[in-house]
């Protein structure tokens, strides 16, 4: 149930990401949209999808191979963004990359003009893609998380997620700066929150209350610092980054133990103090 909630949030976040400007395209849910889209009575088929990743709506649905003349513009947009990622390494997270991507899928580059917050849409699409890939990897069991201790699990998940960014590392600072812009920050924050939630969920976290927020904040911090460390890491296969990551995770778990010990110590002191005060009071 938790997982499907994350998936639903994932799709709505991508959808939402394209709606944070004052122009609100009040779109009906997808199947109804398709029903209304055609002025002729024939039913609309699903469009062919080139990737299995975060397109809107019915994720588990299967595609027919016929392409409809009335394909959904959101699907086309997703196709264009997917194709644009290939150009990001060369052109950066820019309109130029999106125009090149549109040319690749044989859609007029004018579609880029219709995408709200253009470069941010590309970055957000990428973030959603990576989260989806991460979820798929966890689900398929290839990470073998059950063999690992909690701290190792978190470290492995963060490593797997950051490795997805490795091909784009030369342009990643640009992506970070795009995410930090005021108009984009709410969406990027939401995406990172979902990511961190996924980390903990995959580690079978059973926290509640303040603990829940604390865990997510701490892992969010570890993730962000490692991400930034990775930007200037020149070692082969980012070895230094993974060492850095392990250290931070270990620190965090040690800190947790430290807090617990402090708590016990305080209780013990308090108990001791209380009894000596009582003794003192009794005497006098």
């Amino acid at each position, binding site marked *: 149930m938790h997982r499907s909630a994350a998936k639903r949030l994932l799709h709505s976040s991508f959808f939402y990401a394209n709606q944070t*400007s*004052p*122009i*609100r*395209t*009040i*779109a*009906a849910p997808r199947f109804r*949209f398709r029903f*209304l*889209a055609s*002025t002729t009575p024939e039913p609309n088929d699903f469009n062919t999808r080139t990737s299995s990743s975060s397109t809107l709506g019915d994720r588990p649905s299967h595609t027919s191979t016929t392409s409809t003349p*009335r*394909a*959904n*513009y959101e699907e*086309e947009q997703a196709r*264009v963004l997917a194709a644009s990622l290939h150009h990001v390494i*060369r*052109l950066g997270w*820019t*309109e*130029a990359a999106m*125009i090149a991507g*549109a040319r690749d899928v*044989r*859609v*007029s*580059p*004018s*579609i*880029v*003009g*219709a995408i709200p917050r*253009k470069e941010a849409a590309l970055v957000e699409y990428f973030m959603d893609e990576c989260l989806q890939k991460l979820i798929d990897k966890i689900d398929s069991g290839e990470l073998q998380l059950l063999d690992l201790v909690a701290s190792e699990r978190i470290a492995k998940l963060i490593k797997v997620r950051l490795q997805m960014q490795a091909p784009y590392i030369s342009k990643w600072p640009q992506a970070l700066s795009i995410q930090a812009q005021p108009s984009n920050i709410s969406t990027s924050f939401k995406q990172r929150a979902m990511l961190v939630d996924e980390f903990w969920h995959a580690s079978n976290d059973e926290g509640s209350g303040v603990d829940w927020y604390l865990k997510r904040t701490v892992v969010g911090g570890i993730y962000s610092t490692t991400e930034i460390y990775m930007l200037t890491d020149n070692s082969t296969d980012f070895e230094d980054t993974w060492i850095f990551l392990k250290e931070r995770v270990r620190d965090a778990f040690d800190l947790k133990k430290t807090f617990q010990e402090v708590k016990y110590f305080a209780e013990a002191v308090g108990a001791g103090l209380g009894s000596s005060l009582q003794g003192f009071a009794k005497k006098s």
Partner: protein
Amino acid sequence: MSVRMVARRLGSKLLPRFAPAATLHSHATSFGFKEVNEEEKSQLVGNVFTKVASNYDIMNDLMSGGLHRLWKDRLVSKLSPFPGMKHLDVAGGTGDVAFRILETINSVNRRAKEDTREDDLQEETQIYVCDINPNMLNVGKKRAQERGLGDLGSLVWVEGDAEKLTFKDDSMDGYTIAFGIRNVTHIGKVLAEAYRVLKKGGRFLCLELSHVDTPVFKQLYDYYSFSVIPVVGELVAGDRDSYQYLVESVRRFPPQEVFASMIADAGFQKVEYENLVGGVVAIHSGLKI
């Protein structure tokens, strides 16, 4: 300029609150507040623009207080032109929008950031300016020369009818119509033609005078339209009637929501509109997929 943007995904279930030419007799249409035969309308509009062509730009400046330049800038920035684009500007007689698009594509700012591959594409950029009135086109050609854009192969001046374009299907990346669509006889046909010539992923953008709803401002705007503009037309261009036609045709044009539904009916997706100056002007946009 207050930008209040509202958009709707409109389908056939939207009930038109105002029925434009639909309620009129099938062979009659409106010329301002007068009712005329359809055949007559294009003749009458033709006469209007033949008369105003030489003073068109000055009158625009006077009537809008220079704001029309900002509106056209906004239109072009929404379009996001790119090198290698094939663009069609309909009813673009004197060339304002076309010049802006070309200048955006060729701007030094853009070229500095460009990929070297795009230089080849620069050559392929074609902006077609289509207008039914040859006088307006001539004024446009002259202005192009003055701006130094005359000898570039990129600007092509075409005389043609928006309801029956001579361009091939799926040939244009963009289609704009600025302050032209209220003058056509059949809006639906123009929209259908726009849909036909656009490529997949192509965008339709329409800049047009539209309806103001905010209470006090509406009265002011009406007063300005009906009392001031025809007088200015008389004084500057010596032609009161043409400008009377103009303000009346604005009132006759469908309001924003209805026009948006007409665009959606033509097959466009992601139909949105943006009001400028509280609704005096609206930019409608649609995407062909």
